[in-house]
């Protein structure tokens, strides 16, 4: 196996080296120059902790009754509705809020908050629930035994259990009966340098996605400027998703 590990996609690596070398204007060892192009990480390079993907959601811009982000998520990830809302998966949902004291209302999309200290990862007995180096919290369905303890532990009810057989899945979003799943930040898109489907679908531009660790990213600049909060910030989980206007 060792040998195979080493020559994985050699031709691709060579191609990348050559083409990036042209861009970089010189031949550099792989791994040194690749970070320069932050978004377009090469397909054969592992994710690193230098990046932390995150999101800022402005509930002031989010329209009540609009669920374009929810629909986009369902289409992108192939979350077919079976007609039973209690058992259907919902990776992102629209929540309406009304302040009990003041009567002020707000509307916002709630998705996996991609905590830096995720309770779902802590409680998972097999390690199926895990956090990628770049902060994206995922379920490795290959080793998920379907115990649902992560669903008990999540403060945001962000996780769903697949209650029925699934067929015709998207090749980039495998999902099947008996495992737990949740928002992946559209990891397959992020790995290509694109934004999650919900962010792209939001016409109000209420959702901004980016690298929280890159001070130059649009997200980081916004986060420095505007006042934003974490949902259940009292739990001190250091969330990847922050909100404005609540």
């Amino acid at each position, binding site marked *: 196996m060792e040998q195979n590990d080493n020559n994985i*996609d050699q031709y691709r690596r060579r191609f990348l080296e050559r083409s990036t070398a042209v861009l970089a204007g010189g031949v550099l060892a792989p791994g040194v120059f690749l970070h320069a192009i932050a978004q377009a990480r090469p397909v054969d390079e592992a994710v690193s902790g230098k990046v932390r993907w995150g999101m800022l959601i402005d509930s002031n811009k989010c329209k009540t009754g609009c669920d374009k982000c929810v629909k986009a998520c369902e289409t992108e990830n192939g979350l077919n509705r079976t007609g039973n809302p209690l058992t259907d998966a919902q990776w992102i949902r629209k929540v309406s809020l009304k302040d009990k004291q003041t009567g002020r209302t707000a509307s916002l999309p709630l998705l996996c908050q991609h905590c830096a200290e995720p309770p779902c990862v802590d409680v998972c007995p097999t390690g199926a629930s895990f956090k990628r180096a770049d902060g994206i919290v995922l379920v*490795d369905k290959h080793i998920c035994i379907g115990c649902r303890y992560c669903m008990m532990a999540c403060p945001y009810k962000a996780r769903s259990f697949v209650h029925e057989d699934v067929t015709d899945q998207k090749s980039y979003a495998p999902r099947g009966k008996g495992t737990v799943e949740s928002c992946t930040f559209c990891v397959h898109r992020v790995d290509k340098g694109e934004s999650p489907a919900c962010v792209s679908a939001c016409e109000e531009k209420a959702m901004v996605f980016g690298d929280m660790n890159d001070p130059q990213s649009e997200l980081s600049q916004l986060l420095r400027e505007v006042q934003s909060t974490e949902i259940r910030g009292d739990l001190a989980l250091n969330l990847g998703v922050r909100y404005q206007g609540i």
Partner: protein
Amino acid sequence: MAGAHFILRALLLAAATVAAAQAAAPLPDIPKGRGEKCVEDTALMRTNHMEFILHQRDETMHKGIRTSKHSLKECIDCHAVKGDDGLPVSVESPRHFCSVCHRYAAVSVDCFQCHNSKPESK
């Protein structure tokens, strides 16, 4: 000693029966994939494809490495078998590339509870 002889004979007889049964069962007719050759030698692939896929699975899942050489998606794309309706068949069909051998060897495949066994319909 007579007992040992008897056991030995019985074992030989059993082995011969198994061999005969194997010879009798028709070898699976493996559908040809797209393109000239596979990403690895056919012999290597036959014995080790699960290792390649398993390795790639963890690389992609945990490290975000999305090379295509050993990715299940590429296997499915190249080795799609069309059914009578001209559309790719799913793993439920005995003609599916994976099914052909796995049914012959009576080894269950756990991939397709979650992964699509057909190339994505565009």
